[in-house]
């Protein structure tokens, strides 16, 4: 299946804002999307367990993905 990944703030600074298209095996979870993302340059900026959303809803690494889903990774942001 194919999922689309969006990156925000410092993650976007490191990896680009996306959307990044990822090809994942059937039954993949958000953790698999993260693992695939770690293959890309700049991914060392991603912490071990970044907060994420699936289809614009806060989710966890265990969340199962389906073809066409959108996964977003969001760090906290300091600036004010």
């Amino acid at each position, binding site marked *: 299946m194919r999922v689309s990944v969006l990156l925000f703030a410092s993650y976007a600074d490191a990896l680009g804002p996306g959307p990044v298209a990822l090809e994942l095996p059937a039954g993949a979870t958000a953790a698999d999307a993260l693992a695939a993302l770690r293959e890309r340059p700049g991914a060392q900026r991603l912490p071990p367990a970044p907060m994420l959303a699936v289809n614009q*809803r*806060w989710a966890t690494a265990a969340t199962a993905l389906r073809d066409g889903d959108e996964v977003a990774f969001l760090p906290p942001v300091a600036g004010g």
Partner: protein
Amino acid sequence: MTAPGPAPDFPRYARQLALPEVGVEGQTRLAEARVLIVGAGGLGSPAALWMAAAGVGRIGLADPDHVDRSNLHRQLLYGPADVGAPKVEAAHRRLAEVNPDVRVDIHQVEVSVTNADRLVRDYDVVLDCTDQIPVRYAVSDACVAAARPLVHGAVSRWEGRVAVLAAADGPCYRCLWPTPPPAHAIPTCAEAGVLGPVPGAVGMLQAVEACKLILGAGDPLVGRLLVLDLLRMVTHAFAVPRDPLCPACAAGEIRERSAPAGVAAPAASPFPLPSEPPVSPSPAEPSAIEEIAPAELAARLQGAEPPLVLDVREPWEHAIARVDGARLVPLNSLPAALSTLDPGRAYVTLCHHGVRSRMAAEFLRERGLPRVANLRGGIDAWSDEVDPAVPKY
């Protein structure tokens, strides 16, 4: 609500009093509200300026810093003459210029876990406008403990974030990011860079959300994290539930999360939407309704058979300005009031500028009341030409 304060400054707030969600009651709520702004920088500047201008009665500003020249491109509370001054003092001066009726409390301190509880307790709504992640956690935890809604704002380069946290049934900052990032893992504005209007836009949205919370208007950003990608001008609204395992807000305790006194519970507007007729009069029978000048109405009211003045404005307008002896019948309730009117009696319809009242007069005549005149220019002209003691709005 606490004891009512003085009546709002009607001319100053006329354009927001006209909103059905505001009106006299809402403006009074704003005047009685106490808002704490943590961080008087790029977010706190627009938030404080807009809330002072809107008539929020008491604004607390907490910031330990002094104005730096590198602040001026985005922190519009300050000008070149303020460089070197404590931010809270310079901000106080600026806010007093914007609206001298606003009380400003200055707290020249870094908000932290040691003082956040005490600071937050004195306010109804808190705005997180800081640029420090540890301060964000401290303020969120204090707002959860005190049951104060927290309007979160944050920026990173071209990206902005807004959410209402620590509200009833909504998440807190720890629900979103349970684990604080390592120190220095998240770049500050100084490190990452920021375009001035980006925090400007986010701080303004925080002011809008704070006003909505005070007014009980609309749908605040509870349970939603708004992310603005202003470089691509794309917005995302992430659904963010409360974390049932959150150490701050869901640690097995049942907390009474009733809103503090200055915050309205979300509710329907107390006022119906005003029925705004077209500005131009109906082309049909343009001279059919007698139009009388304010002086003529004054003379008739002193005459042998004084007409009954029907004020067809909305209740909030009547609360601001009225003509003695007039009966308030808002335009959209006129049909229901028809049976109470005497066809043999003389009536004069009145509104703000004479347009809605002409519609009312035409309606009444069609329904069998022949002796109806319209006050030309409305209560505005009445104030100009007959009774200057009637406030204008």
